[in-house]
């Protein structure tokens, strides 16, 4: 098999994977914001987040994909489930949006999508990916600990502050 045709087949496979994952993600995202059962919304959110991790792998960003699974699916969704449990939200049907709010929200979201879609289509119509460079974890680590060392330290302080702040806010006294 010639390398060119192999590349072409690989690109077809990438495209199929992209569209399958993207379809699942869009469906799950719509269900997150429309479902009446709040626990189901959290579980659909897992589907969206896993799809995002899949897209990162298609973009050859392995470390971000693993971090996505660990932090989002492993921690943030669990935090959401605890939040649902502790606020004793109705686990059955939840009617928390009236018709007017839905219409206004849908109108604004559709307008936003129209503007963004038009702009993206105009600006990046012929933006083809070249040969995808695999960005290994060591590249990311080198970048974080050289160019982005100070932002990295600041992020640690922000996380510590958020941790202490969350404890102080939620504490019973």
């Amino acid at each position, binding site marked *: 098999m010639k390398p060119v045709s192999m590349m072409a087949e690989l690109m077809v496979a990438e495209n199929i994977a992209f569209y399958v994952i993207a379809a699942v993600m869009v469906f799950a995202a719509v269900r997150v914001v429309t479902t009446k059962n709040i626990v189901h919304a959290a579980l659909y959110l897992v589907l969206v987040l896993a799809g995002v991790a899949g897209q990162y792998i298609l973009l050859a960003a392995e470390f971000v994909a693993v971090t996505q699974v660990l932090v989002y699916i492993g921690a943030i969704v669990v935090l959401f489930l605890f939040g649902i449990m*502790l606020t004793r939200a109705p686990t059955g049907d939840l009617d928390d949006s009236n018709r007017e709010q839905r219409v206004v929200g849908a109108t604004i979201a559709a307008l936003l999508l129209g503007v963004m879609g038009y702009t993206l289509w105009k600006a990046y119509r012929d933006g083809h990916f070249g040969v995808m460079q695999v960005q290994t974890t060591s590249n*990311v680590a080198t970048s974080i600990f050289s160019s982005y060392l100070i932002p990295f330290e600041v992020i640690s302080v922000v996380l510590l502050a958020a941790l202490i702040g969350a404890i102080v806010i939620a504490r019973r006294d």
Partner: protein
Amino acid sequence: MLLNQFLFLAAILFCVGVYGVLARRNGVMVLMSVELILNAVNINLVAFGAYHSSLDQGLDVSGQVFALFVIAIAAAEVGVGLALILLLYRNSRSIDVDDIDLMKG
């Protein structure tokens, strides 16, 4: 692959998140919609990073590093946000964001 595929996917996710923030009143649902928005931004960052390093034939992981920072900030945001919602529930027995009008003029 086209760069636009990823950008359009991110735009759709972003708009779905905006709809969720505007239309839902449950505080936890609003936070979940904010997560959708942050993930849309992350897809954009990683896609642009991969696009540039695939064109220049050089490794540039800045997009990924930015995405990691956004993930860290999102974790902090959810922690504080859920603590606030918990406090709200304890004080008013409701997490409907339309009920928070104590400072309304």
